[in-house]
């Protein structure tokens, strides 16, 4: 039973025995064999040393772009990933109310795309963000994006009862958040109650891009006016 693993798999292709590997994303188990569920390169994640766990077999959704071709290659397709609990998302604020803010999820960041050396799973994140921060693009594609709520008590970890939503988010801000629940029929639930979560991009009332000055303040470089936000820690 030492059949070599195939480089790439197509749905329904048998990859190996379930007694030898653990089934990872992009695979399913049928009669104690692991089969591929999507088309893509087969990746074997080695097991943690000194444990009894088996190595994990998965089929990747991302196509590993060659480094020297990454900039020129237009073959990069946009593959959808769904927000899941604990996944980090970038979202744009569409509505701010007293008890909650409504956001629409622009992109789900997974482990691969957090590494800047690799191309992202979705479209180029930079291009998504630049187009999303542009007020002209608002509310045209919101129907096609997943909607989410940031409740007042999920904005920050301390002094939850003193939160004033208007001083945390404004419409059009780009927020990095973590999904806490799949929610109901229409909304996911997102939290920003961590230092690295919160507003990452915002425009001032004058319409200029602002830079963060503290965990709750951003400043307009042109008018020098400061505005209140729940700011994400810059990397």
């Amino acid at each position, binding site marked *: 039973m030492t059949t070599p693993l195939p480089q*790439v798999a*197509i*749905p*329904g*292709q*048998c990859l190996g025995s379930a007694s030898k590997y653990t089934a990872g994303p*992009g695979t*399913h188990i*049928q009669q104690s064999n692991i*089969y591929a*569920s*999507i*088309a*893509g*390169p087969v990746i074997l994640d080695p097991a943690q040393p000194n444990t009894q766990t088996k190595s994990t077999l998965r089929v990747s*959704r991302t*196509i*590993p*772009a*060659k480094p020297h*071709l990454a900039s020129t*290659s237009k*073959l990069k*397709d*946009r*593959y*959808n990933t*769904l927000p899941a609990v604990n996944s980090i998302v970038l979202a744009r604020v569409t509505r701010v109310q007293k008890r909650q803010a409504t956001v629409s999820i622009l992109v789900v960041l997974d482990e691969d795309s957090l590494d800047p050396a690799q191309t992202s799973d979705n479209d180029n994140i930079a291009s998504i963000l630049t187009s999303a921060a542009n007020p002209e693009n608002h509310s045209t594609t919101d*129907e*096609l*994006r*997943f*909607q989410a709520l940031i409740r007042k008590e999920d904005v920050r970890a301390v002094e939850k009862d003193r939160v004033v939503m208007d001083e945390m988010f404004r419409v059009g801000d780009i927020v990095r958040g973590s999904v806490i629940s*799949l929610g*109901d*029929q*229409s909304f996911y639930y997102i939290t920003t109650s961590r230092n690295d979560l919160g507003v990452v991009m915002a425009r001032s009332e004058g319409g200029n891009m602002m830079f963060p000055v503290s965990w709750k303040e951003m400043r307009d470089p042109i008018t020098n006016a400061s505005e209140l936000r729940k700011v994400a820690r810059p990397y």
Partner: protein
Amino acid sequence: MLELPTIQDTMNDRRRINGPAEGTRPPVYASHLKSGGATDRAQRQREPTDLRKIFLKTGLIPSASGSSYLEFAPSSSLANARSNPKSLIPPSSALKLSCTVHGPKPLPRSAAFSPNLVLTTHVKYAPFAARKRKGHIRDASERDLGVHLETALRGAIIAERWPKSGIDLTITILEAEDDRWWADAPDLHDASWGMMNVLAGCITAASAAIADAHIDCLDLVSGGVAALVSDDSTEDSAAAPRLMLDADPAEHRSIMAACVVAYMPARDEITELWLKGESSKIALEKGDQRSAHEALIDGAVDAARGAHSVLSEAVRETMLRAVTPL
């Protein structure tokens, strides 16, 4: 005295002179048929177990998350007719269709919570796809195809991996199979046989588009058709009907029964089965112990296996093209 307009009249536009609603077809003269005889009729050149060649390619529509285009090779009679035309009407048509998958995307606001992927299928004939012109509104046969296609795919998709989201699958049929040879009058055994081939093509193309959109599925599901055909060319009407894989209705005088399956070879499972015709009364050739049903289903599964080899190659080819850029 004022006559009340009938319902039919009120539906039509009476202010303008419109063309016939059904479209027109070139006349076929009996004298022409006599002189042409059986030579005009498309004859099956393939072996009973041979399939037509299939062209299948995925990822052709950039705005969709998954797409595919499928074409069946036209029968050899078409090439003959082109080189030596006896009539303006082509003797047979082949299948051409394109399939797009949009999504996964959020469900509409009014929809109830769904822990699974919601699959919506639309099958639409282009107005010029069949010999009889199709309207812009989906008719009963198109809705029927959509339902059959949805059943076929639902068994293959792992829906629980995509909660709260839906995909829209749209198939546009650019050229449809004929239901019979164009000069034949509808007879006793007539039914919309072309639809069976169209459905098989839809299933194969949809499966390729879903794989292209990277939606989790158990296996690539492919469609296959088999038919029991009695060609009375041998003047022996008592001859048992023969089983033909991937039967082109234009090439056969009389199709007794036909069957479409959607089949997953890796699991040896059928997700969709559609039988048409009076197969229970048909006796197969001597020595064949199977009932007509079993023979039809076995034949259709064999045809689906053939289509699956094309399907898996097409999916693999698209992926390899992405992994190793030119």
